[in-house]
């Protein structure tokens, strides 16, 4: 697991040597890293913890708005705002997680997706505007992060890239540690059978809430990073496009196949750009691709790799 | 009538049945004995197409039926009557019985079978409109057997029909099985309450750790020291 991650991030780290001069390419690489974290968090909650949470994009947007609002309204340093935003998002995650504790499958999906659905009207409403969301206009001026005399703004993409890389490495490492820890085992037990897990003394309640808190914290943190990088926010993030893209990342990488989600994110972002010449046919092809991938590669790229590489090596990869 | 040759069955990674060969002749009641978890139910389910991974040969009335789907088997007259009954709880007794006659083979005989079943189980006749989930254990067991009979099957695989029943109800169930057999049905029976059931059986197989370890008449089985444990252990 860690070897794959090291390789992926290692390759990512040297890519600016080749495309560092092209803002467009750097932007794509940065978005790869940002979505990699968001998709990994989703994988942790859905693939490992087995909770059908559909609120991932909502948490991302909550984090982004929170960080922007903290840095603008309170005038605090964007880094502090990001961490605060992470905490706010974690709180939101716990809040959403609580009613989900008693629910099953498609109901959890609905409740979490409801958060997604309601977020847009909320951000646009009077309440949202009072908080500083800018209503329907969005927030068009968000201060960039400045650290050690470097400005991590949209016109300094190489700096942003390495900051994003550092963030992605840290977040992925946390996710990996969680999966390998006793938590990971508990999740597996929970996924197999709630009753069985209970007999082992695993408290479903505690772990599920904890995974909601952790994934939303990381997602919110990255959302904050996104806000300060792009420098503007609008509710258009909540369209169906991003949601579907994230889902494709997960399908492509393999659900519950961490670090497959990272690979999935990178391939989806890049693949989506490569399909751009198709114009209106792009989403058509994407949709068909999802169908074919789920049928032919049910465990995603990661599953394919594991079946390609001899079993022992795969085991090593998994063990790290 | 039915013959298995070198039958193997698997659940996921677990190899449950090993090279099982057994035979049931027309009109016979064959009793399958053995400790719990050694593959008796799996054998019945393998015959009835309810186990995904099976190899070896099953021949029924001279035709190979290995890996045929359950609905085809039911249509050919093989029915499984489950130990845990598997009734449709939110439906009435009558609906359960009608669903028992779902296969094409059973549909044409539905009326006749319904009359016969109500004759066999007069208590069901009085409770046609009752929901299956509200029935007592004994009644539900009767309903499960009755539903199996509705399939117009010639070959009944009955899985532990007396499980969880009080002694007097057990006797009733066994009497009914005897009556069914008398009416011409062939029965492969998995049971653990030997003393009462043994007299029903024409022959006995013993299945241990997925292998057949004994075959013979009840009298022969009773003479086997080794099997006494199984007999009395129940």
């Amino acid at each position: 697991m860690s070897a794959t991650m090291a390789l992926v991030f290692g390759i990512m780290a040297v890519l600016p040597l080749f495309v560092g001069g092209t803002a467009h390419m750097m932007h794509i690489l940065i978005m790869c890293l940002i979505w990699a974290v968001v998709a990994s968090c989703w994988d942790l909650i859905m693939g490992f913890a087995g909770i059908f949470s559909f609120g991932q994009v909502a948490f991302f947007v909550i984090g982004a708005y929170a960080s922007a609002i903290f840095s603008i309204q309170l005038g605090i340093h964007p880094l502090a705002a990001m961490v605060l935003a992470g905490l706010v998002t974690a709180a939101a995650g716990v809040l959403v997680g609580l009613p989900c504790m008693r629910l099953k499958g498609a109901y959890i999906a609905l409740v979490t997706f409801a958060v997604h659905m309601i977020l847009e009207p909320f951000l646009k409403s009077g309440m949202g505007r009072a908080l500083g969301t800018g209503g329907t206009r969005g927030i068009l001026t968000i201060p960039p992060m400045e650290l050690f005399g470097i400005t991590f703004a949209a016109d300094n993409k190489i700096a942003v890239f390495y900051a994003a890389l550092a963030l992605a490495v840290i977040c992925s490492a946390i996710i990996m540690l969680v999966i390998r820890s006793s938590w990971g085992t508990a999740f597996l037990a929970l996924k197999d059978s709630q009753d069985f897990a209970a007999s082992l003394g695993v408290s479903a309640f505690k772990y599920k809430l904890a995974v909601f808190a952790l994934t939303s914290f990381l997602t919110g943190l990255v959302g904050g990073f996104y806000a300060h990088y792009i420098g503007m926010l609008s509710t258009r993030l909540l369209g169906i496009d991003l949601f579907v893209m994230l889902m494709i990342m997960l399908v492509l990488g393999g659900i519950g196949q961490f670090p497959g989600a990272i690979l999935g994110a990178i391939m989806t972002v890049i693949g989506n750009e490569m399909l751009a010449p198709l114009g209106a046919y792009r989403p058509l092809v994407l949709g068909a691709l999802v169908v074919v991938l789920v049928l032919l590669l049910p465990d995603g790229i990661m599953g394919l790799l594991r079946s390609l590489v001899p079993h022992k090596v795969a085991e090593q990869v998994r063990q790290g | 009538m039915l013959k298995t040759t070198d039958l193997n069955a698997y659940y996921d990674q677990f190899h449950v049945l090993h090279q099982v060969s057994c035979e049931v002749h027309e009109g016979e009641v064959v009793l399958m004995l053995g400790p719990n978890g050694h593959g008796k139910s799996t054998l019945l389910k393998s015959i009835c197409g309810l186990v995904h991974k099976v190899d070896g040969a099953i021949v029924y009335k001279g035709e190979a039926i290995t890996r045929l789907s359950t609905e085809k088997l039911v249509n050919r007259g093989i029915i499984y009557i489950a130990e845990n009954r598997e009734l449709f709880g939110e439906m009435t007794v009558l609906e359960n019985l009608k669903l028992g006659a779902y296969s094409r083979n059973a549909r044409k005989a539905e009326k006749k079978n319904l009359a016969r079943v109500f004759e066999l189980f007069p208590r069901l006749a009085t409770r046609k409109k009752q929901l299956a989930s509200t029935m007592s254990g004994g009644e539900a067991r009767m309903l499960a057997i009755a539903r199996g009979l509705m399939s117009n099957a010639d070959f009944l695989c009955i899985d532990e029909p007396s499980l969880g029943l009080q002694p007097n109800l057990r006797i009733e169930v066994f009497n009914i099985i005897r009556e069914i057999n008398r009416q011409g049905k062939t029965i492969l029976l998995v049971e653990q309450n030997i003393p009462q059931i043994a007299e029903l059986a024409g022959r006995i197989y013993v299945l241990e750790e997925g292998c057949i370890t004994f075959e013979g008449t009840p009298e022969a089985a009773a003479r086997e020291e080794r099997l006494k444990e199984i007999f009395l252990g129940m």
Partner: protein
Amino acid sequence: MKKLGLFILICSAIVMGTISAHAADVIKVGVPLAMTGPYTDTGDNYWKGIKMAIDEINAAGGLLGKQLDPVRFDTQEFAPERVMQGADYLCGQEKVDSVHAGWAGWGQDVRAYGKYTAPFFADDGSQAAVDVFREDPKKYANIFQLTDTDINQATSMFNVLMALPHDYPNKKVVIINADDAWGMGVGDTLEANFKKEGWEVALREVVPYGTREWGSIMTRVRRIKPAIIHVEIVSAPEVITFFRQFMRTPTPSILSYGYSIVPREVVQTMGKEADGLIGEVPTAMPTPEAPTPEAQAWVERFTGIWKHQPQAGSWAAYSGVKAWAAAVVAVGDEKNHAAVAKHISTEGYKGETGWWKWDEDNVMRGGGDVPFGHYQVQNGEMVTIFTDPPVKPYKDYKFITPRWIK
């Protein structure tokens, strides 16, 4: 593991391979529009105008002897990073010499394209975009708006409503708008204007897109019996269902649809049924008879190519391309972005209806030769009844009292 590494290398190689060399004798023109998703419809309107302008220029021998080569980019749903990516792709990587958009991000686009120098034409119609521009007019000198802001358009709608040759039975108005930036901007402005004139805003409803059942609003409308109902939702199904449900038991109210009259389906679907509705289009080509022979010829060319009447946005986007081309010819160098932009903002451009002049905010303000058009549906077609500012009747076309007002 090796296979994985190889795979990633191949992927990145393919990506880098897409940066291919281009011939030097073309001028690349960026066209970021919604090609997929819910905004596809408007994107299509703009594209038809832009394509027509580019084809005309190319057919006439190109610009400075070079052919124009449109590079399209799908802005999808205008998520912030998507808007930025469009700018990075078109200006940063493809190095286009001008960008022609329509709806482009309502302020987000100004930020994204302001980082580059290529002249950028948008049809945002949004005060938010102007506010961003004003933060740093020098930096954003390449940003041009083809239409006036929501605030000014709404004020124009209000002025025309007040100027209608119609006796309002009372001073009550109902305002219904969509919950997007445009709808809110128009709704807020109208509300303020009506209140200032001593009207009662008896009902102000903000509704989400996708609303099809208006029963609960109609109940209240029937009680209020307002003199004016203004609906501002730029989406055909919403406004058509509203109209049909209103017509079951109509109140004697002027139905003002503002910019929501624009989706072609409104007139196409309802035909004469829609007679009486009024609406507004900025940077509009007046119909059925254009103000000048050149303009009339343009309408006929457009109809000839695309087989339908031009819709709002087509002409604005077309004119954006032509204005830029004229400036390039005047400057003599398409690469001198600053000079081209300066020429556009100082000299303007002479189009089919007359002069286009951008103001100090690089906004094409309504008025002069390119006024706001105010329409009424008559006999199943949109007819210009007023232009503004100043509010004056257009040619001989007259407002007709809607049939539901006795």
